[in-house]
């Protein structure tokens, strides 16, 4: 399991390729399924053009909360592994914000765990988005529903 919060640009496919090499060394042939999700910054939200975003977090608590969520999902769905990386700081449209990937023996657990982990992250992990609009900034007040 690897959990991280980073201010550098997030390259999800490179991270996955790299992580999966280690993972194959640990349980080659045991995982039949990997489900992943990448959330990316859009250039629109609630009908407005968005030029940039600042992602604030709570250093210490954010990592701890992500770790708890990943461990809960691993236990609940019997996952073989979890990779969870979240971006913070200043972002431009088109840049990835979050990567959630889970590995399991069968696909049902992978699909369900990936989605559930992403929803839990949105509901419980301490991150806050401030959007830069043409005429000022605003804090995003709540996430869209995921189900």
């Amino acid at each position: 399991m690897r959990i991280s919060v980073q201010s550098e640009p997030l390259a999800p496919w490179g991270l996955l390729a790299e992580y999966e090499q280690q993972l194959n060394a640990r349980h080659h042939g045991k995982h039949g399924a990997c489900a992943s999700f990448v959330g990316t910054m859009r250039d629109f939200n609630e009908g407005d053009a968005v030029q940039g975003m600042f992602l604030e977090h709570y250093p210490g608590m954010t990592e701890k909360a992500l770790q708890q969520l990943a461990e809960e999902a691993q236990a609940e769905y019997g996952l073989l592994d979890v990779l969870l990386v979240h971006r913070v700081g200043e972002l431009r449209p088109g840049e990835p914000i979050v990567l959630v990937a889970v590995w399991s023996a069968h696909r049902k657990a992978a699909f369900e765990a990936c989605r559930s982990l992403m929803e839990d992250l949105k509901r419980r992990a301490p991150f806050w988005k401030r959007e830069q609009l043409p005429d000022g900034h605003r804090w995003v007040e709540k996430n869209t529903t995921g189900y």
Partner: protein
Amino acid sequence: MVEANLGAQTMTIHVKFFASLKEQMGCDGASVEIGEVASAADVWLSASGGQPMPPNTLVAINMEYVDPNQAVQDGDEVAFFPPVTGG
């Protein structure tokens, strides 16, 4: 603790604000001295100068979510923040 009934001791609580609440309070945190029986909500009142806590404010003590009525201990880090919007 033996001092529990004396009422004269105070606790030092490390307060943090995040996101829109930080902007609203004009600071990202402070250390406050508070009486030795206090909840997170009491810490809010002390740190905010008596302002009402905005609806939906989330509260964490030592980086764990808690109910605002949860008691605080000397040295605790108590954080207040708006609903989270990551992912």
